[in-house]
């Protein structure tokens, strides 16, 4: 049997077939070989996947807590107004809560939308424009929200 190096079928270990090697050995499609470049593209997609799950767990507490306070307790939505916001943002605890919730929810949502765009926009140009719009809106919203939390002035008038 000849060992043909141009075929995808590698040489069978120990040579030839037997009961333990009844079929030719086929190399795994993404196996690292000597020819694989040392620097591959990195692990961005894996990091993004992990971020969705980690941020999701934290958001359960932050978002459901936020809904409970704003829509359920103490008369629900009826109590909300400038005075209520001023009362809550007087405390660094709620400032940090809202800041963390803003950043995590925006990044989580933006990454989710990136996936959705990748799934449905079939033309490269469409994807480029939609993602450009998405990233612009995301950066704008995060910066605006952060600015509002840090510069809030209860005595504005």
């Amino acid at each position: 049997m000849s060992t043909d190096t141009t075929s995808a079928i590698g040489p069978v270990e120990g040579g030839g077939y037997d009961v333990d090697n009844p079929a030719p050995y086929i190399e795994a499609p993404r196996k690292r070989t000597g020819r694989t470049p040392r620097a591959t593209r990195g692990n961005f997609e894996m990091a993004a996947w992990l971020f969705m799950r980690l941020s999701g767990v934290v958001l359960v507490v932050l978002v459901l807590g936020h809904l409970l306070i704003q829509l359920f307790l103490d008369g629900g939505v009826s109590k909300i107004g400038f005075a209520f916001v001023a009362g809550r943002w007087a405390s660094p605890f709620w400032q940090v809560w809202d800041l963390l919730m803003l950043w995590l929810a925006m990044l989580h949502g933006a990454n989710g939308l990136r996936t959705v765009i990748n799934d449905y926009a079939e033309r490269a140009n469409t994807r480029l424009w939609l993602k450009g719009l998405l990233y612009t809106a995301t950066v704008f919203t995060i910066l605006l929200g952060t600015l509002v939390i840090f510069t809030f002035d209860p005595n504005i008038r």
Partner: protein
Amino acid sequence: MPAGTLYRGREGMWSWVAHRVTGVLIFFFLFVHVLDTALVRVSPEAYDEVVATYKTPIVALLEYGLVAAILFHALNGLRVIAVDFWSKGPRYQKQMLWTVVGIWVVLMAGSLYPVLGHAARELFGS
């Protein structure tokens, strides 16, 4: 329709569709919500004026829908995490989905009065 958007058509696929739709809706809401909250930097009157529209019966109904979307996305998100990280997750994904739906129905029933009570009082008096 782009390839690969219909997948097997059972609980797993429909929960994924619902997770995706609710996620996108929540993101669009969040964008608007940061804009309206930014009005506290304009003036107390501007903020209170916009929030006043949030207290009308129609918007109360939208708020109930928002609670529905967030609760489903949060509960189902925890299920997705369990499927990915818990060794028995994939085997119990269907049971976990019906658990999610059960908890969601109970919480939505419990939210009726707190979220919609003020709207009902305004519409039907007392």
